[in-house]
């Protein structure tokens, strides 16, 4: 199941190293056969941090890997061009250059910058030459309840504006009603509208009610051609969790085993501590394998995680606990 680890590419666009998931016909038997035993999944999630521990150089290296997988995000009503340019500057230089040099990874950047449609143009401009892609949330984010035609049109606008990645939100009601065909059709139309831009399907797992629904929705979105599946908008009351990540990761593994296509995973919202990031990476490593520990197949949707990682890296280098004001803000 696990293929050899490939070296990191400067290119962090999804599936630039992998054939893109073309999707497949909706297989309802497979979808409805998905099971997710919540208690067992929670036990696994609960024991994971106790089973895996990273110290010293290994911890530093893994934290740097986490940075390379961050979709540095601002999704606020008060976003302005100035705010987005600051964010992009942080994406280019996520950690103090001197520290990065000492760690042997000068030039490290975040995986992408993630913004609303209206901020795409300035983000593309601010990131020009960096190789960092711009991701845009779309399709009536976060609720996804605007007219379907407008949601599809929004994708086209964002792609035209220069977004290389589109984070769409699914219609939760299709999942809650078990209308897998409708979910499949919707996802197919989003994928088609994306064209060459890569599409991440946000399931809004906090609103799907059960882990079984998460498993089934994950499969349907992959069958409909999602390049990534993503937990949350960050706006639900419950966002990324380890149990949800287990379920989605296992769905990705099953999809790969069945089709040979690797789909990426993006937990988003609520991951703000360096230690949590390490646990997520360990989960991905143990459940999906090393190949998924690269930014073309794994992203964190996060805004405050980077700050904690910076402090931990300084601690690693100096042996002293750090303070946030010592690190440049976004």
């Amino acid at each position, binding site marked *: *199941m*696990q293929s050899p*680890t490939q*070296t*990191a590419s400067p290119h962090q666009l999804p599936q630039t190293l992998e054939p893109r998931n073309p999707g497949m016909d909706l297989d309802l038997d497979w979808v409805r056969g998905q*099971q*997710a*035993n*919540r*208690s*067992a*999944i*929670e*036990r*696994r999630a609960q*024991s994971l941090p*106790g*089973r*895996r*521990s*990273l*110290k*010293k*150089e*290994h911890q*530093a*290296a*893994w934290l*740097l*890997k986490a940075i390379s997988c961050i979709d540095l995000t601002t999704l606020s009503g008060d976003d302005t061009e100035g705010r987005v340019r600051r964010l992009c500057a942080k994406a280019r230089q996520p950690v103090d250059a001197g520290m990065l040099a000492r*760690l*042997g*990874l000068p030039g490290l950047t975040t995986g992408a910058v993630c913004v609303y449609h209206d901020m795409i143009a300035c983000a593309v401009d601010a990131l020009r030459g960096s190789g960092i892609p711009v991701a845009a949330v779309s399709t009536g984010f976060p609720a996804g309840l605007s007219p379907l035609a407008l949601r599809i049109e929004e994708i086209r606008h964002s792609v035209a504006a220069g977004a290389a990645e589109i984070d769409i939100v699914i219609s939760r009601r299709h999942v809650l009603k078990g209308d897998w065909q409708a979910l499949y059709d919707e996802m197919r139309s989003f994928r088609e509208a994306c064209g060459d831009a890569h599409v991440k399907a946000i399931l809004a797992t906090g609103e799907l009610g*059960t*882990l*079984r629904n998460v498993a089934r929705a994950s499969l349907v979105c992959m069958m409909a051609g999602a390049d990534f599946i993503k937990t949350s908008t960050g706006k639900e009351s419950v966002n990324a969790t380890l149990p949800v990540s*287990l379920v989605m990761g*296992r769905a990705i593994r099953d999809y790969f*085993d069945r089709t040979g296509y690797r789909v990426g995973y993006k937990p988003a919202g609520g991951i703000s501590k360096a230690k949590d990031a390490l646990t997520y*990476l*360990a989960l991905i*490593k*143990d459940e999906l394998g*090393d190949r998924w*520990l690269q930014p073309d197949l794994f992203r964190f949707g996060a805004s405050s995680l980077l700050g904690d990682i910076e402090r931990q890296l300084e601690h690693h280098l100096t042996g002293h606990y750090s303070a946030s004001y010592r690190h440049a803000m976004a």
Partner: protein
Amino acid sequence: MTVKEIFETMDYGPAPESAAEALAWIVDQGAKFGHFIDGGFTAPGDDFTSRNPANGETLATLSQATRADVDAAVAAARKAQPKWEKLAGPGRAKYLYAIARLVQKHARLFAVLETLDNGKPIRESRDIDIPLVHRHFYYHAGMAQLMEAELPGRAALGVCGQIIPWNFPLLMLAWKVAPALAMGNTVVLKPAEYTSLSALLFADICRQAGLPRGVVNIVTGDGDVGEMIVAHDGIDKIAFTGSTEVGRRIREATAGSGKALTLELGGKSPYIVFDDADLDSAVEGLVDAIWFNQGQVCCAGSRLLVQEGIAAPFHRKLKARMDGLRLGNPLDKCVDIGAVVDPVQLAAITALVESNREGETYRANVEMPVEGCFYPPTLITGLAPAARLMQEEIFGPVLVSTTFRTPAEAVALANNTRYGLAASLWTENVNLALDMAPQLVAGVVWVNASNLFDAAAGFGGRRESGFGREGGWEGLSAYTRPAAATRPLAPVTAFAGDKGPADPLDRTAKLYIAGKQARPDGGYCRNVYGKSGALLGQAPLANRKDVRNAVEAAQAAAGWSRTSGHLRAQILYYIAENLSARGDEFASRINALTGARSGQKEVEATIERLFSAAAWADKFDGQVHNVPIRGVALAMREAVGTIGALCPDEAPLLGLVSIMAPAIAMGNRMVLVASEPFPLAACDFYQVLETSDLPAGVVNILTGAHGELASPLAGHHDIDAVWSFSSTDLGAEIERTSAGNLKRTWVNNGRARDWRQDHSRAFLEAATEVKNIWVPYGE
């Protein structure tokens, strides 16, 4: 490796827990340990060493207890016991609470010491073993507090000899010591010779808790010390956890000694995966089932039964998961599997696996440490039940597997074993899960889980996995006895005579087997005389073949165990009704047999006993234990199965019914041997049974010599329990012979019981086994 290189490979690195504090503790004790007797450590000997199995390094030198040491420990425990019991529950609760707190405060020291000595990963000792230890002492502090109020009429057993294994050294100590102390007993405990250190640290904790001298005594050494404890006259109860082989020897050695005994032995527990299960979670469950503690777990889910249609994908997922397991330094916080406890155990596992020529063997593709006692996670698929590895306990990280087609076949395969400790079953179908769980012969069933433990839920086995429960309310009976004093039981002999019959019209008494009157196989009978020497009739002399036939009939009546309590109650009431209609006749028969005039009273008491049993038939409820999960642990009371009983000689009708009624009320089937001197009342009684709608085979009645029938009953492998209330003291023979299949025994040890009293509750307890069914839930 540089940070940049690790950034590329994303390997895990070493993450060792420091051993410094634990090693410093050992050095502080001189790295040499004596025994803990009467509140102090004896001068250490230079007898054997305790080693770290991960690297072979010597940790400390330990002392081998001599007979004098064991005598001293038992004497100290004996001396301390009356005062400890008199302290009463609330007084003892304070000490147990202090021990719980102290274990908690020194949790990391205990965890590291345990990992150094045993080789288990620090994650397990830190996150599982030690938290369960202090949980057990907290829980039993509560049991001590509640004892007088909730267990009226129960008293401590006295001095308990406790022998524990090396796989969960401190946890097994806690399971033994906490309930014993809570109920007012004192203990002499022997840890396994591979893993004594945490017990010695525990001794230190007892001192810090101010525990009175002699309440806990710990002697170290090998099996010879265990034998000295087992054979010691000054000990009232033996509690043993370990192999079935040694458990059997202990059963034989204690036979007839009057010592109480509980055994928690081996297992080959089934792990059943249905095609609608969450397969990934079931795979992960196996990591907890068979790769927990290197598979050195008595209740390890070691026998994988997969529904045929999903076997291929399930095995594929399983192999992939096995490859992700990490073996290595047990103190590494990033390791899943540590070291096997000792080179001897490693050799035993290796030899067993290498002896196998069947199926397909898959060894996990994992990096193996270069030194130390390590064995790779191993899966052997395609084995038939006939394969040796499907039947024998390996006690290592080796899983064997076969397939099944239907739920009924899963039950048959699961129960096709001499063991009966635990079972896991995986399905998302609540109907299937709750239908399966009662059918599995096991003391513990985990639904969609594995190896869940808690002080509030009893743990223990059926069949050759042993008897007795540890934990929960059900565990307390293993450390208490009825408080009432007993007197010796004098042998009751038959009357001799040479007169003719009182009534010339002959009546033929037969055996009662499978609902039919049957002539004895041997074709012999004996004359039964009254006190005056008048011939009352002839009673058949049953032999071992009649026992065989009766047991077969009882097995064929297995459906009785599945009937409702309500139905059984109605039949018991009906038996009472039909007996009452012939009350005068039975009264005169009893008077004629016994030569006394108590017949009328005995019949009345018998009818009362039947009413009591009918009353209890639908009321002797199980419990829902309060375990710390989102879910329930259902403590269900199940029938023991087929019970053979030698009935009291002195009360020919009341004695028989006092035993029979509660047992069949709980769904058991009986092979009863009637009063030896006064058998004819039982022969009349089967006519009552015949007219009372009791299904054939539920009760079988034999007459004959107790001394001749005890051994065939106790040795029969299809009998689950043997009881003896005979005035012939057959305890030693029964207990010794029962070791064959480790059936439950209950013998009177030559002590009398007043059958005019209602002892129903004691019989209900003995007639049931508590099965804990863990059902975590959550959608």
